[in-house]
């Protein structure tokens, strides 16, 4: 019986989406069959069908269900920027500098240092130039900064920034409310930044906010997220961080969103930025890892509440993510105990309790 006939047989037996198994010929299947079953009468079709079906399932497993988790995950630490930006207590420059220095010593390779946005909008980060100039710049660590426009970009470069980030949104209403312009207008602004960045060989990271839901529009279509992400990637962003800004995502819709985006952008250029507002952060990160994403944004101590849900939490905490990855045997290069020291330092300065469960469980004064 030829393989083609076999396919027909399998289809007739209800195996839809039959994956053509190129690796084994019928003869080999029969050979294996008799070897495994020995004296058991191998009834031609039924056992071979079973064998091929198992092989098919195996193939499907590899294709669909649990692709191997990445061996290494890059953590992008956003505590000093995204975290502090959303904390009520304004911390002095030297505290920010010390925090970033402590974080640099944990083994983190990317620490978002500050944001060159107008102090009128984000008073916490009014000291952006001083912070950028004051931090100790470890050679193996990048210190990207946010630059909402060309003006911010120039100020950032002058202050010594070597990498910048730009923020898009998948929701029109959010874009207007947050940055006072439409998605299209924001893209035009970013084009200016990217052009200048290219001239100066400055890498640019892109963020897409509201990748799952928007506080104003509700659910966001995965296709829209893919469109905005693709635009930013094509413009020249080396990496796009997909943000569940309101934290409403669950593994189901995070998966759907990622499925749409990975059609347009290589997985290696994607990151997830999950908020823990509804406790779904780690589960969402895990599903992203299962889909091949290997860059995760998080915030030491889970700094940064949610501006859209009073009293709610925001960023996932770096310690909890590192704990999970470590348990999975995934390397991050991060020393968890040093991370918890940084956590303790900043929480004391902010006069608040840590949001990290790991820190709560481990810390012994």
């Amino acid at each position, binding site marked *: 019986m030829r393989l083609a006939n076999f396919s027909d*047989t399998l289809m007739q037996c209800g195996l839809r989406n039959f994956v053509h198994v190129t690796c084994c010929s019928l003869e080999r299947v029969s050979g294996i069959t008799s070897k495994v079953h020995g004296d058991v009468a191998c009834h031609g079709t*039924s056992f071979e069908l079973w064998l091929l079906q198992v092989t098919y399932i*195996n193939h499907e497993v590899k294709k669909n269900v649990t692709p191997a988790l990445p061996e290494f995950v890059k953590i992008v630490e956003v505590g000093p920027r995204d975290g502090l930006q959303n904390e009520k207590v304004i911390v002095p420059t030297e505290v920010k500098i010390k925090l970033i220095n402590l974080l640099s010593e944990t083994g983190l390779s990317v620490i978002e240092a500050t944001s060159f946005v107008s102090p009128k909008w984000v008073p916490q980060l009014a000291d952006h130039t001083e912070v950028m100039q004051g931090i100790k710049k470890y050679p193996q660590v990048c210190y990207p900064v946010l630059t909402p426009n060309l003006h911010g970009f120039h100020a950032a470069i002058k202050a010594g920034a070597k990498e910048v980030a730009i923020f898009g949104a998948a929701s029109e209403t959010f874009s207007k409310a947050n940055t006072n312009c439409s998605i299209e207008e924001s893209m035009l602004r970013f084009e200016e930044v990217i052009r200048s960045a290219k001239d100066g060989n400055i890498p640019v990271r892109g963020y897409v906010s509201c990748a799952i839901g928007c506080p104003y529009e509700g659910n966001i279509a995965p296709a829209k997220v893919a469109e905005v992400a693709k635009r930013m990637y094509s413009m020249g962003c080396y990496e796009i961080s997909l943000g569940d800004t309101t934290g409403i995502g669950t593994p189901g819709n995070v998966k759907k969103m990622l499925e749409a985006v990975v059609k347009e952008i290589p997985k290696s250029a994607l990151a997830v930025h999950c908020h823990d507002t509804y*406790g779904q952060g780690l589960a969402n990160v895990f599903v992203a890892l299962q889909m091949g994403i290997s860059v995760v944004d998080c915030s030491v101590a889970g700094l940064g509440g949610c501006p859209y*849900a009073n009293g709610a939490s925001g960023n996932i905490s770096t310690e909890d993510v590192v704990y999970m990855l470590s348990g999975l045997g995934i390397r991050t290069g991060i020393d968890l105990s040093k991370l918890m020291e940084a956590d303790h330092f900043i929480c004391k300065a902010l006069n608040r309790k840590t949001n990290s469960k790991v820190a709560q*469980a481990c810390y012994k004064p």
Partner: protein
Amino acid sequence: MNEHRSTITKQECSLPVGEHFSSHGHSASDLQTNVAVVHSLPQEVKIVEVGARDGLQNEKVIVPADVKIKLINLLSEAGLSVVEATSFVSPKWVPQMADQKEVMQGIRKYPNVSYPVLTPNLKGFETALQAGAKEVAIFGAASEMFSKRNINCSIDESLRRFEEVMKAAKDLSIPVRGYVSCVLGCPYEGNVSPVKVAEATKKLYSMGCYEISLGDTIGVGTPGSMQEMLTAVIKEVPVSALAVHCHDTYGQALVNILTALQMGICTVDSSVAGLGGCPYAEGASGNVATEDVVYMMNGLGIHTGVDLQKLLEAGAYICKALKRRTSSKVAQASCKL
């Protein structure tokens, strides 16, 4: 061509195969694991609400019987099908549960809801039945040291005590649920071998427990260790008879639950408002919050039968009585679901 058509299903593919054979170079046990993982997420998950027992048991503030009764009634109205009501353990050990009889007799027993109670021994079992219990639960451990420290006897001794309970329960057709503690780690022994967990689980199942809840007592588990443990247990006990009881001490509960669901588990224990801290790590959290679990299930399109809004109300009620903030992130964020 042979006219015989096979109707082999995916389930049948977990037939034991003695030798390595796959052209992809996987061993049979790998295949079995892969086949276990291939189950898509369950369409329905049963939530076992343990707030009124496991939750309250680990709360410092003692709440009066009428508060417990009201909590359980609110939980029943939230659509939960299993609400663990109390524990018939000596009040000397667990003062919070001293009002066990009053609670059992005082709650409104909804027809579609079970109210299992803990019964550590025959005496507790008899008292429970006298108080109107129709289902009981027994607690084993996968760690010898934990067993000795927690219930003052070895694992084997505890199983012998349970056999008495099982026998009495069988005679009266009372279903018994089994718990295995320390499945992913022990506060005294550290790592716990999956084989040991599988062994303890199998014993409870063979004794007659209809369901075994696997507890990550100190919350140290991660998806990796959860998967490893479940792989060992599923070889011994049908996945449909298993539940997971994940603690959120290190923030890993929901992701561990997700991993369990991906492996075919469809019963999850949780505690309203995430009641119940961890007695092994001061200031740390304990049980995973039912609201957060239900939120995830809803997002995944998995049916639980639970009305999240009513659940939030039950959580708000008990937190007020306990004068504490909810541990549920959904509750903290909520108000506009």
